């Protein structure tokens, strides 16, 4: 069978992948350096002349001096020019190496994802094959679809990623082994491959194979094999399809001259050779998996055809004895038609397999793309988990709250212990996952650095290598420490849980014994009742003491566990932050070197990436700053948690139910957060929702601190008060209590506002005047008599005036 040996990402990049470009650059640099060496020699020669001679002062010596100066100028100009070219070339090389690194890194990520996926599938396939082997003949069929599906997926994946890891050597050995035992069967491998390729020589080769089989097996035995293999072949149809795809692709690739195709072909041929040379095809189906199944269908086809063709003599004999020649011919014709149908069917299957294979390749391509997206999501999720560190404190709070509100302390502790165990495991897993990622990243980076061409290394190579080696060692050490810590934590936790269980069992035993004794005593006469009560009281007292003792122990245990979790959490975060900081510092160092290099290019007016490097460095600095802020927040959260737990356990003994709330309040007060996080009624408020923070959507959504002498109104009562301030409300209540008038004006009078007093006086005068006007205003009463006389009485300021009118004289009296 094939063995799984995933190819490493670094193997994908061939040695010397960058050779043409790098070698060209190296040659160029070497040429520049040779020129520089020559020019430097000229400078040295001039300097030696200066040292060894004095200027004589004649024209010849002055002329020689002038020539030397001019030559030196030219040499220096040349050195500067070559240096610029060298820097430029070096920058290009570095840029190329950087791109190369990124490319390799990306490939590694994809390969790792693909390899992980394939490894899981391989394991699943091995399990299915094992189940298939052990299953009965009747139930074997149910495993076949899954085996076929996984096999196709794996092969598609291998083809899509270009990874072929067949252990060809095993097939080779097996082939030699069988070739020694089975004369003439050496060519069956090639035969089988071509059979599935359906080329023009298929029938001839089938005949050859049939004869070869006949040499080895008895005809009847071959028939038996063929019959059984036919049954198995139906189940192995898809597996055979895959094999056919192998061969078909091998032929295509061979035409294209692809060396990989040769490997395909070799693998396919040797696999078929091994499969066909198995002593019993039926057994092969039982033990082999898809490769042997494929061999089985080969053997089945060969045997069937050979039986039909090769046993012609016996059939004729049978026909002569039992049927007419005509019937025999018809029978032969029918058989030939069946053979033709089988061939057509196989051809159809072959085409279907090809189509299926193409669809699988496309699916695999999509899967690889999805893997990239999944990786991205995982990174985002991890980041989210890291950022949600505050959730840890909330979990502790919830746990303690559940202890206070329901289930009893014991149940709460057990629950807490379980949660703590899960939490420890989760934290360890997260930390390990993180460290694994770091370690792998460091390994990859180190490997890449080692693979760098000599041109790109210079001084930075040694520094990078040392740094990466150091990071690797540090990561390994942290991981070891983490393993040890994990073991310690888990064992301690298990011990605590067991201890609690043992004590609970003891308590139950005592209670049972007490109940038993009570039952025994109450069975007798009434005289024992006193003893019963006494004993009961004693037992209750003992039970109470026991419970108190146990509660104390449980609290102490919980405290230790909580402290341990907090401490572990603190240490883990510190280690993680330290590692992140180290990475950021390393990045910053690298950026600084790049900036210096790019700055030099910029100063010379050449193309550069200075802005990018500076932006990247600024980003790193920002990350570093964020990390510092994050560390501060984490430290504050841990500190808050410690204070909370300390206060909680201080209250827990006296007031278990209210301990959590008090601890919360006092924690906030101790940390100076009372006014910002919760609220205090020290200053009073007319509206809680306006002045305090909290969740208004739940009942009792505000945590507040009140003094013993303060008053709290319900929302309904407060709505009756309306907009009146607490101050006015209190004064109103005071006036009411003291029998003083209420209202706005007395309050104003009391306040001594002279303007308002004047206004009030003026108002009173106006009322007085108005009253006078009303008194002076005449009020008339008019009466019409029967005789036509009209009388009118007018009342003005207390005096009545009568006026009469007669229609005859048409005037008033």
């Amino acid at each position, binding site marked *: 069978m094939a063995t799984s040996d995933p190819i490493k990402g670094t193997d994908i990049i061939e040695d010397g992948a960058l050779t043409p470009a790098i070698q060209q650059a190296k040659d160029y640099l070497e040429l520049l350096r040779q020129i520089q060496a020559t020019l430097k020699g000229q400078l040295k020669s001039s300097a030696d002349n200066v040292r060894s001679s004095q200027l004589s002062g*004649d*024209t010849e010596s002055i002329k020689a001096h002038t020539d030397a100066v001019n030559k030196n100028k030219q040499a220096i100009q040349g050195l500067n020019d070559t240096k610029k070219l060298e820097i430029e070339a070096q920058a290009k090389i570095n840029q190329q190496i950087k791109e190369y690194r990124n490319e390799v890194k990306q490939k590694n990520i994809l390969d790792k994802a693909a390899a992980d996926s394939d490894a899981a599938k391989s394991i699943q396939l091995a399990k299915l094959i094992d189940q298939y082997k052990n299953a009965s003949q009747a139930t074997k069929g149910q495993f076949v679809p899954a085996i076929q599906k996984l096999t196709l997926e794996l092969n598609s994946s291998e083809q899509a990623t270009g990874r072929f890891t067949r252990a060809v050597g095993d097939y080779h050995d097996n082939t030699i082994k069988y070739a020694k035992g089975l004369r003439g069967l050496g060519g069956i491998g090639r035969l089988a491959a071509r059979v599935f390729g359906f080329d023009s020589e298929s029938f001839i080769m089938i005949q050859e194979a049939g004869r070869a089989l006949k040499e080895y097996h008895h005809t009847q035995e071959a028939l038996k094999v063929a019959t059984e293999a036919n049954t198995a072949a139906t189940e192995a149809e898809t597996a055979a399809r895959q094999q056919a795809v192998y061969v078909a692709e091998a032929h295509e690739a061979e035409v294209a001259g692809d060396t990989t195709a040769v490997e395909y072909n070799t693998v396919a041929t040797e696999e078929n050779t091994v499969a066909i040379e198995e002593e019993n095809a039926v057994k092969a189906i039982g033990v082999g998996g898809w490769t042997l199944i494929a061999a089985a269908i080969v053997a089945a086809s060969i045997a069937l055809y050979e039986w039909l063709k090769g046993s012609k003599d016996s059939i004729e004999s049978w026909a002569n004895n039992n049927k007419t020649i005509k019937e025999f011919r018809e029978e032969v014709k029918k058989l030939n038609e069946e053979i033709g149908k089988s061939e057509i069917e196989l051809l159809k299957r072959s085409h279907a397999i090809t189509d299926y294979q193409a669809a699988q390749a496309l699916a695999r391509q999509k899967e690889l793309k999805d893997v990239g997206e999944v990786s991205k999501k995982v990174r985002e999720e991890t980041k989210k988990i890291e950022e949600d560190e505050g959730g840890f404190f909330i979990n502790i709070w919830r746990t303690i709250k559940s202890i206070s509100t329901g289930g009893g302390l014991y149940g709460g502790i057990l629950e807490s212990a379980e949660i703590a165990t899960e939490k420890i495991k989760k934290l360890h897993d997260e930390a390990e996952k993180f460290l694994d990622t770091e370690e792998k990243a460091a390994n990859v980076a180190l490997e890449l650095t080692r693979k760098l061409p000599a041109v790109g290394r210079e001084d930075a190579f040694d520094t990078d290598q040392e740094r990466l080696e150091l990071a690797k060692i540090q990561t390994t050490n942290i991981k070891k420490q983490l393993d040890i810590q994990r073991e310690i934590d888990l064992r301690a936790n298990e011990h605590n849980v067991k201890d609690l269980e043992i004590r609970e069992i003891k308590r139950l035993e005592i209670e049972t014994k007490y109940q038993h004794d009570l039952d025994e005593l109450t069975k007798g006469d009434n005289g024992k009742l006193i003893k019963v009560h006494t004993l009961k009281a004693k037992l209750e007292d003992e039970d109470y003491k026991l419970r108190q003792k146990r509660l104390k122990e449980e609290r102490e245990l919980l405290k230790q566990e909580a402290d341990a979790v907090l401490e572990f959490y603190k240490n883990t975060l510190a280690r993680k932050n330290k590692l992140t900081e180290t990475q950021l510092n390393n990045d910053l160092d690298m950026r600084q070197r790049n900036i210096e290099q790019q700055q030099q290019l910029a100063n010379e007016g050449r193309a550069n990436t200075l802005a990018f490097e500076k932006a990247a460095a600024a980003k790193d600095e920002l990350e570093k700053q964020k990390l510092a802020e994050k560390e501060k927040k984490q430290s504050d959260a841990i500190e808050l948690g410690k204070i909370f737990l300390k206060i909680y356990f201080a209250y827990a003994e006296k007031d278990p139910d209210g301990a959590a709330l008090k601890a919360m309040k006092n924690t906030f007060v101790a940390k100076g957060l009372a006014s910002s996080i919760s609220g205090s009624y020290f200053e009073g408020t007319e509206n809680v929702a306006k002045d305090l923070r909290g969740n208004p959507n739940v009942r009792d959504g505000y945590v507040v601190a009140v003094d013993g002498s303060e008053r709290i109104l319900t929302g309904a009562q407060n709505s009756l008060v309306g907009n009146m301030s607490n101050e006015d409300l209190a004064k109103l209540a005071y006036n009411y209590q003291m029998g003083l008038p209420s209202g706005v004006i007395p309050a104003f009078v009391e306040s001594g506002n002279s303007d308002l007093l004047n206004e009030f006086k003026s108002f009173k005068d106006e009322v007085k005047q108005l009253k006078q006007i009303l008194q002076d205003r005449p009020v008339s009463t008019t009466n019409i008599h029967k005789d036509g006389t009209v009388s009118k009485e007018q009342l003005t300021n207390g005096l009545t005036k009568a006026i009469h009118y007669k229609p005859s004289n048409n005037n008033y009296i």
Partner: protein
Amino acid sequence: MTWLKKLSLTKSKKILQNNYYKTIDELSIFLWVKIHETNDVYNLLIDKNEECSKKQLHIIWNDLQNQYLKHFGLDEATKKIIEKERNLILLYEDAYVNENRDQFTFIEIEELEILALRNKLSTHKIDFYLSKSKLESILKFPIDMKNTSVKEYYSYFKMLSDGNQ
């Protein structure tokens, strides 16, 4: 062709012996300045109609300059320039061959100083007639450039220079 060569040399020798200014005692300051300004070495010939190769005249001109240098020496500015240029050569070697980058600062200083000295020298040369006028004002008599030899003219300067010291 040996005879032609001999003939040519003989002719040249004759000319060199008789028709050119051999020393700075004979050469007038007028011609000295003129040759410096125009680089026309044919001014060294006493008889302008005589034929002579330019190369030979350059040799004579070099000889006259050597006489000048031997007698009066280099002027202070030139001496300083050459001294600094020699120092500069050593600095270049240290900076580029030994890769001692600290020297670049000193190189820059030396180059600036040399440039300043050259500018000063150039200004001085342009104002030859100004310096002559100053000399005449000090000596209280006019100098006939055509009848004053190079040696005599610069001797005045040397005398005044030594007197100042």
